[in-house]
C-alpha cells in the first residue's frame, strides 16, 4: 500500500493555487493519472520521486516513510525505491542501450539485465546508442532501465506521448507483460484514453491540483468476473489461426473476428476453455 497526502503551492493555468492530493494505491495496481495539461499530474510523480518537496505532507510506502514534513523526514530520490520513466526518456546519450540499463543494476543482477533486454525486445539494439533508436525503442529502454533495480513504485510520465499507433501498441504489450510478471505498483500519467483503458485498473482524474474523480475499472475486478487483459495477440501464418495470450492462459482460434482485438483489451473467457475454441465475449 502506498499512501500519499501532499500539499504544494503551484502555478496553474488559472493562477496560483494549492495542489492537494490524497491517495492510496494498492500494491501491484496500475493506476492512471489523467487530466488536462497543467493540472499537476507530473508534479505528483515528481513529489513521489522526491524531485519536488511539498509544503506539507506524508508519503508512506509499505512500512517505510519516504516523506513526513511534520517529522522532518524527506528521503532523497536515491533512497526511494522508484523507477521513473521520463517523458523525454532521459536516456544517457554517451551510453549504449545495454550500458543505460546496466548503469543502475546491482553487480549481481546481470541476469536481470538480460531478462529485461529480452522482455522489452531490445536484443538487436543492445550495442546501439539511443540517438539511433526510434521513439518506441527509446521508451522501452527507459522502461527496462527504470525496472532494473526492481523498484517498489514505477512512475511513468506520458510514455506514449510521442509514439505512433504501432509503437504505442508494442510498448503497451511490453508494459502489461512486465506488470503481470512482476506486479510493480505503477502510476501512469497519460493523455491517451486508449492507453489508459488498455492498461489501468484505476483512473484518477486531476483538475487544478485536486482529485476530480477516482474510478476503478480494470483487472482487479476483472479477475473476479473471469475477465482478463490480452497481453499478446498475433496471427500464425503457418497454422492459419489467431493466438491470444492473457496472464493465465493462451487461446487460439481461426475465427476472423479475433482480428478486432488489441493488446490491453479486456476479454471474458468462458471457464474451462483455456485453449482451442474459447469464446470471447
Amino acid at each position, binding site marked *: 500500500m502506498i499512501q500519499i497526502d501532499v500539499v504544494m503551492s503551484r502555478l496553474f493555468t488559472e493562477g496560483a493555487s494549492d495542489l492537494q492530493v490524497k491517495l492510496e494505491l494498492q500494491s501491484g495496481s496500475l493506476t492512471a493519472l489523467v487530466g488536462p495539461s497543467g493540472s499537476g499530474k507530473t508534479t505528483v510523480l515528481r513529489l513521489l*520521486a*522526491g*524531485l519536488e518537496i511539498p509544503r506539507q505532507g506524508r508519503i508512506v510506502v509499505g512500512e517505510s516513510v519516504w516523506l513526513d514534513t511534520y517529522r522532518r523526514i524527506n528521503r*532523497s*530520490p*536515491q533512497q*526511494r525505491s*522508484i*523507477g*521513473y520513466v*521520463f517523458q*523525454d526518456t*532521459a*536516456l*544517457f*546519450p*554517451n551510453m549504449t542501450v545495454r550500458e543505460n540499463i546496466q*548503469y*543502475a543494476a546491482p553487480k549481481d543482477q546481470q541476469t536481470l539485465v538480460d531478462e529485461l533486454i529480452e522482455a522489452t525486445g531490445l536484443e538487436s539494439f543492445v550495442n546501439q546508442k539511443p540517438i539511433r533508436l526510434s521513439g518506441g525503442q527509446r521508451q522501452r529502454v527507459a522502461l527496462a*532501465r*527504470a525496472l*532494473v*533495480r526492481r523498484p517498489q513504485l514505477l512512475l511513468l510520465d506520458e510514455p506514449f506521448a510521442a509514439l505512433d499507433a504501432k509503437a504505442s501498441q508494442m510498448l503497451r504489450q511490453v508494459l502489461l507483460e512486465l506488470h503481470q510478471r512482476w506486479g510493480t505498483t505503477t502510476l501512469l500519467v497519460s493523455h491517451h484514453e486508449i492507453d489508459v483503458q488498455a492498461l489501468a485498473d484505476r483512473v484518477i482524474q486531476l483538475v487544478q491540483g485536486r482529485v476530480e474523480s477516482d474510478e476503478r475499472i480494470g483487472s482487479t475486478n476483472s479477475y473476479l468476473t473471469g475477465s482478463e487483459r490480452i497481453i499478446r495477440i498475433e496471427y500464425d501464418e503457418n497454422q492459419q489461426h489467431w493466438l491470444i495470450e492473457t496472464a493465465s492462459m493462451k487461446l487460439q482460434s481461426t475465427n476472423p473476428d479475433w482480428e478486432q482485438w488489441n493488446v490491453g483489451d479486456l476479454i471474458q473467457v468462458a471457464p474451462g476453455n483455456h485453449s482451442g475454441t474459447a469464446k470471447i465475449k
Partner: protein
Amino acid sequence: MPIDWDPIWLTLRLAGITTLLLLLIGVPLAGWLALSRFRLKPIVEAIISLPLVLPPSVVGFYLLLTFSPTSWLGAWLLRTINLQLVFSFEGLVVASLIYSLPFMVHPVQAGVENLPTSWREASYTLGQSPTKTLWRVLLPNCKPALLTGIVLTFAHTIGEFGLVLMIGGNLPGQTRVASIAIYDEVELLHFETAHAYAVLLLGLSFAILLLVYAINKRVTV
C-alpha cells in the same frame, strides 16, 4: 640574433601544468557549482570570477604579499616544506592556478548546467549519487565545454604578463616566460628577437584555437 628557446619551453611547461592541475581542481568545482543548491554559492562564484575583472597587477600584488617569506603563509611554507613561492616557477604555477581558475570553471559549469535536467534526475532516481552522475553521465556529455575550458586555460596562461611579472620577476630559466621575454627584448631594442617570440606566440595561439574549433565540430556524444 639567435632566439633563446628557454622562455618558450617555460611558457609551455607552465601552461601545461596549470591546465592539468586545473582539470583536477576546476572540473569537480564546476560540477559542484552546477549541481549544488548551497546557499552561499554566489559568494564562491564571485570569488572564482574575481580574476576576470581585477587587473593582473592587483592579483599579483596581493599574491606577492601573501607568498612573501615575511608573511605568515610564506614563512610557514618555507619552514615546513622548504617551498618559496615568490620568484620561483612553483609560485608562477600557484598564481596561474588562481588567475586561470574561472577560465576552466565557467565553461564546464555552463556546459553541465545546459544539459537536460532530466538526465541528472534520471540518474538520481536510479539511486546514483551526484558524484557518479557527474562523472558517468554529465561530463561525458559536455565534451565541447571541457575542451573549451582546457583551451581557454592553456591559452590564457600562455598570455599572462602582469601577474607573472609581479610574482615571478624575470629570472632566466625559472620565471622568464615568453611574454616577459618579449617585453625584455623590446626594452633592449632587440626588435627582431621580440618579433620572433611574438610570431611564435601568435602562431601557437592560432594553431590551438584552430584545433579546438576543428575538434569541437567533430565532437559528438
